[in-house]
């Protein structure tokens, strides 16, 4: 009571409709502040009924009355303080098995209360029939079905309120206490706690909370007890194992018992579709996933075709533009810049974009449908074998778009070692830039065999991740007991085409802008370094390139390919641009090194004429598994806060990429 006004406290879990009821009762008569010393919102309001004023305190929405958060502590302290004359406990009628948990946690508190089964309309729509009278008999407190949104139907609520206030109705928790009694140590503990030892709470409630592991209750009891009682108390507490699970199960059993005969419960048993059975199967799931991914990659070539055609058309413009500029008397340098840097880069960029568009569309669609979630589910065990958490799968998936995004996505991983290892492995995932050049190069060099090359790259990626996990894992993630994760798989549904296409076009446009920024400057720098008006030996790049070529040849990379590989460390998009700069144009180093082939107009043909298949394969391996880009290195440092580990990972990737190139080259020599 406050100044003769009756105080009603509203208690319920989030989404139980507590705020709706508060607004329905108080209308505009409410004020909002903070609970003393806390940033938790305090809402109070009032209403008049039959000439009497009622104060309504809207307690914070909490799951239970445990001491797991400020909100929960505020809530239970308020109730125990005796400020409320009656507590109105809300439960969601549409999911009573879950929402009655608050009621079970209240059991043992002796402040009068009544139960409001809110959202009755939703339960009715679900076909549920709830017998509030039967529940009232079991609980010994007033119970009412309500739709708080309909504030003209509050008569039943007011009746319960009056009854609870008049009869001082206290929740009958006998059957719950019987459940608690089956927990080892509960009865003994209860016997040690004198009534009223902590104001507002019954001994049953305190004993249950102490068994549960509630730190505040345990500390208070420890302080309040003395002598042999305290020793016994501490012995019981130290011998209590999994108390939270045991008390939780007691509450669930109690709730189930209450609901028997009260509501026609509709229990959903799991039903698995044929595809779901196959894709989530422990034995065959991975194979199904691999087939889906391969199918996706093959499928992504189809939407890529139109843009590839546009790219080739731009490439075809180079000879006539070059001839026209030469006839018009344009300087050779200007003709070179326009044709060999700008137009050639643009042709490659547009062809790349075709693959970006195709891959993004197909894999975006798989995500929309719900298949990607299942892929991460199926590969969780593999994550575990690598010493990682299930959460690591998202940084890997994001890395297919951008390694930097993957590194930033690893932020959700709490364990530092696992975070660093996740980032280290995410580097092995070919990013969007790699996916834009690899399909194009593999199509150019291997024709229909391009799909096989891409599959090989994916298999190498998996092997690379496994080896990298073994190399760094022992240091970063010590072996420990690992629990499997639980996943709520999203239902399958049709893709939202407009949202998907917005994303695909957005990504293609973003890639185009990013690639333009990277490719053209890198291409221009390398082209200028390779440019010479006189003897080819005068160009800087030629001098450096030919000096190091005896070494780079071991990895299957002639000096032009090696320079393009070096450029890919800045941004993988730049690699093909550099190739185009180094292999094209009159007056450049190209003329000296390609001899007769210099007369070939189309750059695709030029590359095909001057790069053997084993070299092409080596180059693709080197570029794909090289360090992702400068920005990804910076992001890795930002996330790991370790220059040592960032440098170590970068050095490791450089060495491994060259090693993979070397292996691919020598295998290629055996084949071709």
């Amino acid at each position, binding site marked *: 009571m406050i100044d003769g006004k009756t105080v009603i406290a509203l208690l319920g879990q989030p989404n139980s409709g507590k705020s709706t009821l508060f607004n329905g009762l108080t209308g505009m008569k409410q004020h909002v502040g903070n609970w003393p010393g806390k940033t938790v919102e305090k809402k109070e309001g009032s209403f008049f009924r039959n000439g009497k004023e009622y104060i309504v305190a809207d307690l914070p929405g909490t*799951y239970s009355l*445990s001491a*797991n958060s400020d909100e929960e502590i505020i809530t239970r302290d308020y109730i125990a303080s005796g400020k409320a004359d009656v507590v109105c406990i809300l439960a969601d009628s549409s*999911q009573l*098995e*879950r929402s009655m*948990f608050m009621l079970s946690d209240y059991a043992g508190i002796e402040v009068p209360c009544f139960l409001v089964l809110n959202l009755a309309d939703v339960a009715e729509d679900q076909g549920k029939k709830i017998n509030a009278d039967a529940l009232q008999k079991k609980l010994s407190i007033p119970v009412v079905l309500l739709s708080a949104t309909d504030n003209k139907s509050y008569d039943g609520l007011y009746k319960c309120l009056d009854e609870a206030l008049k009869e001082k109705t206290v929740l009958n928790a006998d059957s719950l206490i019987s459940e608690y009694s089956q927990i080892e140590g509960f009865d003994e503990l209860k016997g040690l706690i004198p009534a009223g030892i902590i104001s507002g709470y019954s001994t049953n409630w305190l004993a249950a909370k102490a068994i*549960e592991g509630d730190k505040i209750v345990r500390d208070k009891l420890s302080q309040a007890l003395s002598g042999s009682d305290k020793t016994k108390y501490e012995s019981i507490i130290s011998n209590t194992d999994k108390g*939270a*699970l045991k008390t*939780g*199960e007691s509450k*669930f*059993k109690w709730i189930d018992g209450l609901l028997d005969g009260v509501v026609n419960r509709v*229990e*959903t*048993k*799991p039903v698995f579709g044929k595809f779901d059975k196959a894709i989530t199967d422990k034995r065959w799931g991975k194979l199904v996933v691999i087939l889906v991914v391969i199918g996706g990659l093959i499928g992504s070539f189809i939407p890529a075709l139109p843009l590839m055609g546009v790219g080739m058309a731009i490439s075809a413009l180079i000879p006539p533009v070059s001839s026209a500029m030469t006839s018009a008397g344009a300087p050779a340098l200007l003709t070179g810049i326009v044709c060999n840097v700008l137009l050639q880069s643009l042709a490659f960029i547009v062809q790349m974009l075709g693959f970006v568009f195709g891959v993004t569309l197909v894999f*975006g669609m798989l*995500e929309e449908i719900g298949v*990607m*979630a299942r892929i*991460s*589910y199926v590969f969780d065990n593999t994550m*575990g074998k690598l010493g990682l958490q299930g*959460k690591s*799968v*998202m*940084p890997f998936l*994001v890395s297919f*778009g*951008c390694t930097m*995004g993957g590194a*930033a*996505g690893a*932020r*959700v991983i709490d364990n530092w070692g696992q975070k660093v290892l996740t980032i280290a492995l995410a580097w092995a995932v070919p990013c*969007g830039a790699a996916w834009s050049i690899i399909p194009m190069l593999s199509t150019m060099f291997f024709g229909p065999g391009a799909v096989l090359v891409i599959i090989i790259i994916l298999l190498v990626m998996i092997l690379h991740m496994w080896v990298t996990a073994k190399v760094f894992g022992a240091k970063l993630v010590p072996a420990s*007991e*690992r*629990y*499997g*994760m*639980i*996943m*709520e*798989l*999203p239902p399958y*549904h049709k893709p939202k085409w407009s*949202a*998907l296409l*917005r*994303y695909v076009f957005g*990504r293609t*446009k*973003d890639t185009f802008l*990013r690639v333009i920024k990277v490719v053209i400057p890198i291409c221009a720098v390398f082209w200028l370094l390779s440019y010479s008006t006189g003897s080819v030996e005068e160009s800087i790049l030629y001098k450096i390139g030919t000096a190091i070529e005896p070494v780079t040849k071991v990895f299957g990379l002639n000096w032009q390919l090696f320079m393009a590989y070096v450029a890919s460390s800045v941004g993988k998009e730049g690699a093909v641009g550099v190739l185009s700069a180094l292999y094209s144009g009159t007056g450049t180093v190209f003329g000296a090194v390609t001899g007769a082939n210099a007369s070939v107009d189309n750059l695709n043909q030029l590359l095909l004429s001057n790069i053997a298949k084993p070299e092409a394969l080596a180059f693709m391996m080197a570029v794909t598994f090289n360090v992702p880009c400068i*920005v990804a290195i910076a*992001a890795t440092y*930002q996330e790991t806060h370790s220059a040592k580990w960032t440098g170590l990972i970068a050095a490791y990737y450089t060495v491994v990429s060259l090693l993979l190139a070397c292996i691919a080259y020598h295998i290629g020599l055996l084949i071709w």
Partner: protein
Amino acid sequence: MASMNELLTLLKDGNARSVDHLAAELDTSIEDIERMLEYMEKMGILKRTELGKVGCSDCSTCPGHNAGNGANSPCAGCMPEGGFKNMGVIWEVV
């Protein structure tokens, strides 16, 4: 009703399970599994992560970040707006 202890014991084999698979394995309803997960999450035994919210939404140094879409928008080149929305939810033992 299944036991939470039984559920945690199952997870000790290190294998991932979906809510549906768990319900089938423990011979209970999906609702029963869901309330147990909720309880264990609130008690700090499990940690819940919405996979759709994981990603590059905070990589402020990325060139594509906030491309005119507000302070917390993801990079258009990495993820769809709002992240991968259909990636499900995972619970891991803390």
